[in-house]
């Protein structure tokens, strides 16, 4: 009976999670500012990092939204929530995470990344050893690439190509974790497996 209840709960939870948007709509429209930052030439005294931070803001929002979905999916007493999660405070500080040799990503990004990594570790236990090794190998590939780009940035900190590649590789790491989470959840969280 308990097993049946759990199955029903899992089905219901997955259906609820599936209906949630994986994108976060902030309580104000951030896009005009982001677009301006991306498309307008840098003003004197500013660097290309401004647009990188604007893109990083989008990542923080994405990760925060996904973390919200993840939280719902793993919390047993989750109650119905609005599909619009509250966006985190957009803080980009020179904090603990390395993002190039001159800048760091803020604590919001790091918190979201850590929580997603923990979630992925849980999801990986649902895969076969071979599948798990495959995912872990690719996560390691991405992290090695991040290290390589960071090393290149240490020598050439103002190289915009490296800045973009680094940002996009960080994003790829998050994408990978989100994709694995999504696939594993969709395939294995159903009461049928």
């Amino acid at each position, binding site marked *: 009976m308990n097993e049946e209840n759990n199955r029903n709960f899992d089905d219901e939870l997955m259906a609820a999670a599936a209906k949630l948007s994986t994108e976060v709509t902030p309580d104000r429209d951030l896009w005009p500012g982001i677009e301006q930052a991306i498309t307008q030439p840098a003003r004197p005294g500013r660097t290309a990092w401004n647009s990188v931070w604007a893109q990083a803001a989008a990542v923080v929002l994405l990760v925060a939204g996904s973390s919200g979905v993840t939280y719902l999916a793993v919390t047993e007493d989750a109650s119905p929530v609005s599909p619009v999660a509250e966006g985190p405070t957009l803080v980009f500080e020179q904090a603990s995470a390395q993002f190039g040799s001159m800048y760091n990503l803020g604590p919001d990004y790091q918190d979201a990344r850590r929580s997603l990594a923990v979630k992925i570790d849980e999801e990986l236990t649902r895969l076969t050893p071979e599948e798990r090794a495959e995912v872990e190998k*690719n996560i390691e590939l991405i992290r090695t690439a991040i290290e390589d780009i960071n090393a*290149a940035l240490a020598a050439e900190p103002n190289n915009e*190509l490296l800045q973009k*590649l680094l940002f996009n590789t960080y994003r790829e790491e998050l994408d990978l974790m989100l*994709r694995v989470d999504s696939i594993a959840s969709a395939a294995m969280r159903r009461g049928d497996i």
Partner: protein
Amino acid sequence: MMRVITLTFLGAFGATCVAAEEINQSLDAASDGTVSITNVAGMVDVEGWSRNQVEITGELGDDVDELIFERDGDEIEIKVKTKRRHSRDIDSELFIKVPGASSLEIHTVSADIEISDVTGEQSIESVSGDITTEAHNSDISINSVSGDLGISGDKKSMRSRLSSVSGDVDTENLSGEIDVESVSGDLVVVNGVFDRAALGTVNGDIVFHAQLLDDGRLDVETVNGGVDIEFAGDISARFDIETFNGDIRNCFGPEAVRVSKYAPGYELKFTEGDGSGRVTIETLNGDLRLCK
């Protein structure tokens, strides 16, 4: 939420549960409805046909709990239920015929998937199964962890979103918009015609031998993979290409120039034709070949 789920179950009709090895069942279906298929391991073969019916034949593994095959409105659900994922014999081979205009939603773990003659939208996810499908002017979205993806189209405009972690992605004759990404798999896009194409890998190689239409956009990015671009037909675009540590060999346009003091990277910026399109290629360590 509960109400939705309850209605789904109450609205279901024609449901059958089978716990036999050989299967051969059919249900009436909408001509352009949605067929949802879940099978953990084994194989899923879907073929479009002219009848307004869904038919399943094949075999279920000995450790399969049951096969759910039911219709709810315009949706047909096919689900192989197993007691536990790692049971010994859960491999099930499903041969499914669906109305040709059906949309498909397929989830597998290690089951291979083959689709032919289905013209509706396709949404497919698999962990390690290989996926082979045809695309016919309806959008497709395919995600895999380690399985290879093979997609062939008929050059009708559509949107393709394809991703794999370590599997290779091969496409031919697609058209419209394509977005492909992989971490370590190779991406091959040949014989297509695109308004927009975005291809990205970390370690995989990228091949794009296709046409980019006027006003089209091609974005290619890789950290360590090689890039091979060969445009079919005329190309009119602004090119913005940069490598940090890779060579550029181009069959048209000016010579690439060195840009980095610390690495043998190159930059190549020029306009071809009236420059209506935009081509951006960026690599860290990959070499690039650009021809037309």
